[in-house]
């Protein structure tokens, strides 16, 4: 079967720290929640998939093509990356911030065509920020700024979006808004991998979990993983118990 993303015996990490071998796949329209303790390598994995960071062994295939076979910049038309924290720039309008997602289709000076401008306008409307288009992006609330960052990754028009803790600094209301947005994006055929520490919230929107634990890497649907008692193997501390009913740790 042709997968959008395939990780084969992938080993990520730095010289002294090696993480477990990863074998996993992502298909079109799937939403993957990547969970695991701090420092296990969730961000490193996301960066390795979109080519920002080198990995140690194995291979990453995006649309059946190895990362090394992509020309410089070509991968950006297939994968989009949303960092856990984007710096805020004063005096940069929301429209201009989101337009940077069209980087690869802009001219030598970074100007975008009317078609791209329309795309930015419709995407801002999709994330519910069309009225703030001319607002200074540095003055947006955390929730608005995160939706703007999602809009920026959407206008990149890539098939796979990688998000590093997209709901980490958000209140409940904004978490729900972002969750709905992720569902909507996936229903349009885009695939999403997002890292999170919020299992409850993730279980409501993801089709699969990727668990990075100290005992290895496991992938599966929330139900299957629950049956396998996979969540209980995430942490070193055995006193942390996974509550099936609440779908969270207690």
């Amino acid at each position, binding site marked *: 079967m042709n997968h959008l993303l395939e990780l084969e015996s992938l080993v990520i990490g730095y010289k002294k720290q090696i993480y477990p071998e990863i074998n996993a796949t992502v298909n079109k329209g799937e939403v993957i929640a990547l969970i695991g303790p701090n420092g296990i390598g969730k961000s490193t994995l996301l*960066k390795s998939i*979109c*080519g*920002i960071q080198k990995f140690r062994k194995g291979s990453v295939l995006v649309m059946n093509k190895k990362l090394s076979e992509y020309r*410089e*910049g*070509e*991968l*950006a038309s297939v*994968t*989009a*990356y949303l*960092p856990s924290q*984007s*710096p*805020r*720039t*004063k*005096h*940069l*309008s929301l429209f*201009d*911030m989101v337009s*940077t997602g069209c*980087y*690869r289709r*802009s001219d*030598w*000076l*970074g*100007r975008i065509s009317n078609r791209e401008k329309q795309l930015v306008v419709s995407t801002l409307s999709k994330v519910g920020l069309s009225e703030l288009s*001319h*607002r*200074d992006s*540095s*003055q947006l609330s955390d929730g608005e700024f995160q939706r703007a960052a999602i809009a920026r990754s959407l206008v*990149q028009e890539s098939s796979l979006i990688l998000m590093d803790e997209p709901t980490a600094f958000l209140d409940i209301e904004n978490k729900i808004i972002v969750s709905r947005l992720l569902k909507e994006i996936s229903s349009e055929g885009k695939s999403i991998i997002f890292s999170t520490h919020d299992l409850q919230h993730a279980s409501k929107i993801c089709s699969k979990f990727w668990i990075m634990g100290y005992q290895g890497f496991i992938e599966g649907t929330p139900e299957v993983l629950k049956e396998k008692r996979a969540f209980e193997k995430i942490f070193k501390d055995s006193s942390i118990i996974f509550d099936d009913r609440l779908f969270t740790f207690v």
Partner: protein
Amino acid sequence: MNLKKGNNIFKYLAVISFLLLFSLLDLSLGSVSIPLREIIASLTGGEAPDYVKAIIIEKRVPELITALLAGIALSVCGLQMQTLFRNPLADPYVLGISSGSGLGVSLLIMGYSSFGLSLSGTLLTNLGVAAAAWIGAAGVTIVILLVAQRLRENVTLLVFGIMLGSALSAVITLLQYLSSSSSLKSYVMWTMGSLTGLDNNELWIMATLILSGIVISVLNIKDLNIMLMGDNYAKSLGINLVNVRKRILISATLLAGAVTAFCGPIGFIGIAVPHISRMIFKNSDHKVLMPATALTGATTMVFADTLSQLPGQLLTLPVNTVSALIGVPVIILIIFKNRNI
């Protein structure tokens, strides 16, 4: 705050008006005050006393062009450095370019006397000093480029640049300690900066170097806008940060190196002007901000030169003194307002 783009043209025109006003004042003020009518006559080939024409054409116009070029070069260079390092206090000299130039010039002026030798006069011309400064700046840039290729983070490069600058300054201090008092005075005069005394050939060389630097800077605009969003995001868009860094460093050397070579290390313009432009234009998009910074830089430098002429017949103030008086309040304002890039 709403950032609508409609009034940018009005702002550009306002800055250009100030530039014209200060340019005329700059041409008018000096040891001899020249009225506007005679300035225009001298420039257009009309009726004016010969000595006035000589002062305007041979002294003040070259000085004005030098100020325009220096202002544009230092400001555009400072803007790129602030974006590259996402640091509001970065300036054209943050990577040690001026210290490199300083070492080149100090070796030329003081190196010989430090070792008890005398230097022939031919090397101590403007062009000789400029060449020494240029070689020093280029040497530093080559070292920085080699290091930049191996570093992942821009902030590490920033720290390396500051350390390299400090090390070179230490060598310069040693040379100052060992040199004769006349050589030391020549060197100190160079560090004070000067926009005067360039002949046509020197102006052409300076203009060519600066124009090349500006062309590269304009080609950097697209990537500079993305770099505002952070290194990881830029990399995810397929931007080769090492190449972008190299292009910025090469343009910085051409711009700041040319100014330092011909005018000495003029401070504060490169750090303050990008902030003044951001305050006026309220736009961080480099497509708007870079031309705005170039215009504001030219205006500020000409204004500084005009102020340096104010004592009239008594003396002309060193340009670094005046640029500091303009730049320091802006820098203090940045610190108080904790202004982000």
